[in-house]
């Protein structure tokens, strides 16, 4: 397989691992994000390790107006290769911070949901036109149920999951698969030092699973797989009981 992966939010641990994985497989990668220095360091690293080439692209999920230009730039960098998308950006402020400041809630909603919809809406026509490529987006198990401890983030991710369902139906008609990935706890800067973490997966393992799921054109996966079982239980607890739980 040789394609060009636009990695959105490329400084995050899972995205870094995914970009390395793809480049190792011979794909081209475009590292897109806000921290230009970090992206450049990542691209240099990938280009040296090879064999896939690496580029960088300035991208801010919250700067919706710039997204059309970002997509045009990415398509140009991809050249003749089919453009695929790995959407990995996100923000997870604590519920406590969100509860005292709506601006923080808006950051979570805008980054995880509105920003994702904005860039994917801009990308969809390109993939549709080429009838090639694929989209893999990181949603979250947190979107499966609104929980006391994380429900604004959860609501944003639930919105993203629902959006991706519709996008999948649309792009299916162009032969472009859309894969929703719902990671459980992953060992990233986002979760480092948070209390209550268990069964934490490595970013490399999650990235490898994402890559395989993408090549197989899977619709929706939990990573690691056992989160499907955990979330099935959590989804099926009756609301009158669930509301009393503090998970």
């Amino acid at each position, binding site marked *: 397989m040789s394609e060009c992966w636009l990695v959105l939010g490329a400084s995050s641990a899972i995205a870094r691992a995914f970009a390395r994985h793809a480049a190792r497989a011979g794909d081209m990668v475009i590292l897109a994000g806000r921290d230009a*220095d970090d992206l450049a360091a990542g691209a240099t690293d990938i280009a*040296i390790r090879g064999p896939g080439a690496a580029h960088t692209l300035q991208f801010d999920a919250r700067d919706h107006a710039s997204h059309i230009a970002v997509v045009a730039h990415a398509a140009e960098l991809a050249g003749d290769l089919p453009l695929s998308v790995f959407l990995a950006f996100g923000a997870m402020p604590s519920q406590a911070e969100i509860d005292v400041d709506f601006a923080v809630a808006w950051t979570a909603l805008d980054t995880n949901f509105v920003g994702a919809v904005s860039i994917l809406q801009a990308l969809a026509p390109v993939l549709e036109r080429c009838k090639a490529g694929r989209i893999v987006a990181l949603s979250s198990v947190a979107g499966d149920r609104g929980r006391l401890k994380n429900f604004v983030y959860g609501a944003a991710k639930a919105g993203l999951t629902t959006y991706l369902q519709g996008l999948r139906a649309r792009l299916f008609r162009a032969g472009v698969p859309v894969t929703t990935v719902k990671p459980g706890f992953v060992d990233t*800067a986002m979760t*480092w*030092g*948070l209390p209550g973490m268990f069964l934490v997966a490595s970013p490399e393992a999650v990235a490898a699973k994402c890559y395989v799921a993408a090549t197989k054109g899977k619709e929706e996966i939990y990573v690691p797989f056992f989160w499907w079982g955990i979330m099935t239980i959590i989804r099926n607890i009756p609301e009158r009981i669930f509301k009393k739980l503090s998970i």
Partner: protein
Amino acid sequence: MRAKTTTLTGWGRSSQARLEAWRPERGAELEAVLAAASGQAGVIAHGAGRSYGDSALNDGGAAILTQRLDRISSFDAGTGELVAEPGVTFRDLISTFVPRGFMPPASPGTAFATLGGAVAADVHGKNHDRHGSFGDHVRWIDLLGADGQTRRVSPGDHAELFAATIGGMGLTGLIRRIAITLLPGASEVVRVSERRVRDLDEHLAGLFAARAQANFSVGWVDAMASGASLGRGILETAEFAPGLAVPPPPKRRRILIDLPGFVLNPLSIRAFNRLYGARVPQAGRESVRRLDVFLYPLDAIHDWNRIYGKKGFYQFQCVIPDAEAPRTIREMLETIARAGRASFLAVLKTLGSAGQGMLSFPMRGVTLALDFPRKTGVEELIVGLNRLARERGGRVYLAKDALLAREDFRAMYPRHAEFAELLGRIDPTAKFTSDQARRLSLTPARRA
């Protein structure tokens, strides 16, 4: 950024520490992380956690984990110069550069070790006689010091700080980037020749002869053998073999549980050592192996330290100057055999020359390394071995050490005062410190 309160151990799992662990993912975060982490109880960098004792631990304080700072920054195929962040591992270098004909010039016994750790311990490998230790190939280091400033230290600039950083066990600061020259002429496979050696004399004679003849050499000693067969084992030498077909990498195995203590006993270890020796036919053998398989035989079993159970083990490694080596190593092996202290294979190797660092381990001599399950009485045995190494003008490897006494350390490392004096100037409050540093008084005393 958040820290995580956690327990870290040395690879031997006999040393452990409860500490605040910080794990930066971007180089630009380092100043802030250092400021946040180096509070009351100081901080130490922690790479892959492959040093055996307490050198990367800081009980009650903080550690900065470098494993996510793992970017390669540049590589020049003309000169072999590589610039990389401290969390890049030997495994990264082997897989990326050996197919292009370059390899790390000096490599420890595990590819999981990081380049930052390789600087801190000035590691050596099976080609030390030819190519020296890791520090001999370092061109410069970008070092973030206790004062929050980053300096490029090299043999030409800040030479004193450079010499303290090579082999300095992480106590001079945080390494941001390292420039080293990779060794050209590497091949993905090596031609290995193995032969049985009957006793210590034959073993040492073979190793001494290999110094001039072989690119790589190492001896495996059956540490359970005594009497006339004391020091018997297998002598391995290897040469590059360019152009040969590369076998696929072996499947890595894992040890999923801590084995109970009774699994390793003198009988089982004796049996293992016998089998290991019997692999090689009487007449010796030649084979072709992947370079990584030859360099890192233990990496095939991912968590091999778990076979020693929950209590862990100690590794003892010393180097003894050539002239004293035969009788000293004989005495050491006799002491170990007499104590009935089961150890898996011991490793015997020659070293070529002294390292660049003030606290570099290598010197011209013979190095002996072996593991001891952590059972009652083993500490005394190791303390005795440490003393003997000191008496014979040798030294103990700080990357393996958990038990060295301060006076023994000072006698073994003649530049210790120079090192302490420098640290007193650049880091008077000992922002950088470790359990080992406090045990050996490497750093200035902290005021409570």
